[in-house]
């Protein structure tokens, strides 16, 4: 799952032909690993308007917040619990920031009022929140941390791409969001290093 996110980053950076090896080292050794929910890398077309980027960012932040908040009850590990609570709070702040951008792009519209109807709650990485929570049930803390690292990697990558599409204050905002996702990533990786 981390390698899938990594492959998406490398492919996007212009590397010739990038493949993710399914199942990682466990599959290599002939073992069958339990897979994560099907995920895809978020991207957007050349014609995406700034308000669409802001709406996509808001939806992904909202989904991630739901995931982190929902995971709280499943986690036994105190350090992981605390980190996930902090990440859920951070995503709330991101949602507010992005909602503010949306208001600016649309002359005062609320992003919540403009969301497509009948949507599934999707989080960073394009994964459905309900599926992710179901998948995470009973999983080892290291596995869940790996999954969260993949999410944050996708978020970091997405914001860097959005940042390149915008200018002025909006660009600065997405750059700051990217930096914050990177810090989340580092905190998750630090904790994972202790758990593996």
């Amino acid at each position, binding site marked *: 799952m981390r390698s899938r996110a990594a492959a998406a980053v490398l492919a996007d950076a212009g590397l010739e032909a990038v493949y993710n090896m399914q199942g990682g080292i466990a599959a290599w050794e002939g073992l069958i690993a339990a897979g994560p929910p099907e995920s895809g890398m978020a991207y957007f077309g050349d014609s995406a308007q700034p308000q669409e980027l802001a709406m996509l960012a808001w939806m992904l932040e909202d989904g991630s917040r739901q995931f982190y908040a929902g995971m709280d009850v499943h986690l036994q590990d105190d350090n992981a619990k605390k980190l996930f609570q902090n990440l859920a709070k951070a995503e709330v702040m991101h949602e507010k920031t992005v909602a503010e951008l949306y208001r600016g792009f649309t002359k005062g519209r609320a992003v919540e009022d403009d969301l497509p109807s009948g*949507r599934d709650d999707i989080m960073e990485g394009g994964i459905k929140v309900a599926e992710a929570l179901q998948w995470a049930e009973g999983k080892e803390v290291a596995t869940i941390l790996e999954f969260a690292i993949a999410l944050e990697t996708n978020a970091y990558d997405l914001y860097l791409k959005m940042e390149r599409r915008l200018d002025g204050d909006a660009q600065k905002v997405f750059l700051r969001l990217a930096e914050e996702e990177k810090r989340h990533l580092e905190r998750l990786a630090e904790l994972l290093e202790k758990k593996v």
Partner: protein
Amino acid sequence: MGITDYFKPVRSMTAEEARTFMKDKNPDDYNLVDVRQPKEYERGHLAGAKLIPVGELHKRIGELDASKPTITY
């Protein structure tokens, strides 16, 4: 806005396909990247794999030859 437009799949290989792919080639002909944490790498990794933990990928992307095929795990 079609939300499904925003998601694209990543190309993948099974472990068996990767094995065949690498068997027929010189290690200098491809990038094999281990994106796990250093401790995991120490415990065991594929021969010739370069360790770049996923969190360091953006700043170390230049260490990879962009013209060669790349496999991540």
